[in-house]
């Protein structure tokens, strides 16, 4: 596999794995993060996987202490280390994906934009719910907000543009649609996605390790639940 390296400032390197969002590139991103997860380096700070890249943050001071040749730039040294670490990457290696079920209440009070999404696509709201909850989804990356999943694989039949005026406050747990992506807001933030439901699940759990319920590579299933089930779930979580 052909990896390209380029700097992100003077303390990070971006590894470019592919140039389009697709499942194959995603699989390769997953393989690289797995290798990084299982490696330990003094110079390594952290990595951030995305759709087509993995960015590695490093400590140039540690690198200059470790490298015997002071004429080598820390960036070049890190690229060399990374490329020797990642040479044995094979396309056949697979990463085990888990499936996470996300209960979603699609009731009106949690779904202010369900009607809009339905009208945009000449559907009934029930049909939107049906299509959304039957889909096969993949978490491509976590970013933007803590635990916020970029979920791909949504049916084009229920795609909808972002709101012209983003909401100043979107309640925690809101499930939204933007273009042909779907996602869940883990904390209350401003945002422009069309809201079609809400989950009682906490996606961001600062006291837990890891603090995010979802990880890149997870398969997702949305399970429709009633308002009563939503309330019950919420109460259970606060026992």
């Amino acid at each position, binding site marked *: 596999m052909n990896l390209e390296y*380029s*700097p*992100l*400032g*003077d*303390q*990070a390197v*971006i590894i470019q794995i592919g140039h*389009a*969002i697709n499942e194959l590139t995603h699989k390769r991103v997953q393989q690289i*993060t797995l290798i990084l997860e299982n490696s330990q380096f003094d110079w390594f*700070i*952290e*990595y*951030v*996987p*995305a*759709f*087509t*890249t993995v*960015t590695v*943050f490093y400590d*140039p*001071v540690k690198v*200059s202490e470790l490298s015997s040749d002071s004429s080598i*730039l*820390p*960036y070049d040294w890190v690229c060399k280390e990374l490329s020797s670490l990642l040479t044995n990457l094979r396309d056949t290696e697979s990463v085990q994906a888990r499936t996470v079920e996300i209960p979603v209440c699609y009731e009106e009070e949690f779904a202010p934009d369900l009607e809009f999404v339905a009208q945009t696509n000449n559907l009934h709201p029930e049909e939107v719910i049906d299509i959304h909850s039957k889909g096969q989804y993949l978490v491509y*990356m*976590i*970013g*933007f*907000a*803590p*635990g*916020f999943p*970029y979920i791909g694989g949504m049916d084009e039949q229920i795609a909808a543009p972002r709101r012209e005026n983003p909401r100043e406050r979107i309640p925690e747990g809101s499930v939204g649609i933007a273009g042909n992506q779907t996602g869940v807001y*883990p*904390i209350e*933030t401003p945002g422009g996605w069309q809201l079609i439901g809400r989950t009682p699940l906490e996606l*961001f759990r*600062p*006291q837990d390790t*890891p*603090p*995010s319920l979802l*990880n*890149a590579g997870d398969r997702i299933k949305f399970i429709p639940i009633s308002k009563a089930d939503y309330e019950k779930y919420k109460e259970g979580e606060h026992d």
Partner: protein
Amino acid sequence: MIKVVKSGMLTTVQDLGRFGYQKHGVIASGVMDPEAHRIANLLVGNNSNSPTLEITLVGPELEFQEDALISICGGNSSPMIDGSPVGLWRPIYIKAGSELRFGNIKEGCRSYLAVAGGYAVPEIMNSTSTYLRAGIGGYEGRALQKNDLLSTLEMSEFSSSMLKELKEYAGNVNWKAMDWYVATEFIPKHADSNQIRVMKGREFDWFTKESQTALVSEAFSVDTKSDRMGYRLKGVPLKTANKQNMISEAVAFGTVQVPSEGNPIVLLADRQTTGGYPKIAQVASVDLPKMAQLKPGEKIKFTMISHEDAQQLFLERERLIQQLAQGIKLKYR
């Protein structure tokens, strides 16, 4: 204990940042000016990641309920103890019952207040930094408020010997500063703070030749809508030559990204983990402290340096800070 008498505009507990969790979408947070924060800690004998108070523009009023060794570094926010002005960039003994108050900010935008031992706040995800939007870290996940009580951890032997010496000098006076302070090379001269060195960003080539030139020939001003997440800059709008499809990827402290309306945003301590706008430039790490001390309304000019030079300058700067740390240690051996 330190009692907050007045909170100031935005006073938060910060350390060098929350690392290792950006893959979960958790922002790094941490101090805006890592250099001032680190030096403040060194001066009171703390390790460089000890939490400090980051004080923005209008400082707080704090009542020290026990003797303490403190230092204030970064922007000059006119600190006073019981009404008399105290200097920055040096260790200071403050007697129990005294009040530390900040006045008008004269230079820079934020100051860092370190206390020997460090503030006793819980670590969340290996960091004490306050992440306001998620309400975690620091003091109950929020900015300081009136009547908050901050306790401190036990100070090192090194710190207590410094405190003892100052206390003896002080006699009956309520506070005493060391007669030495850090070398002037560490103290930013704000006259030249409008020159910020940048490297080319990953999407530099996407921009028109005019915009590439404008980036380094025109001045930009810091918009009032700026915050710890990013500085919004105003000036000549920067445009990409073609509408290209950008796929979101990681961003860093100092990334200069340009949304479609053309006004660049410099991402700072509370930046999001990933971004989907083209990156025209990246502020060299060595100039991030300067950047972080800019006030809304101030003007800046970017100068372009190579990625290689940026790394060399950073390493040189780090060597100087290590020398400073050694120098302080030698004074109390």
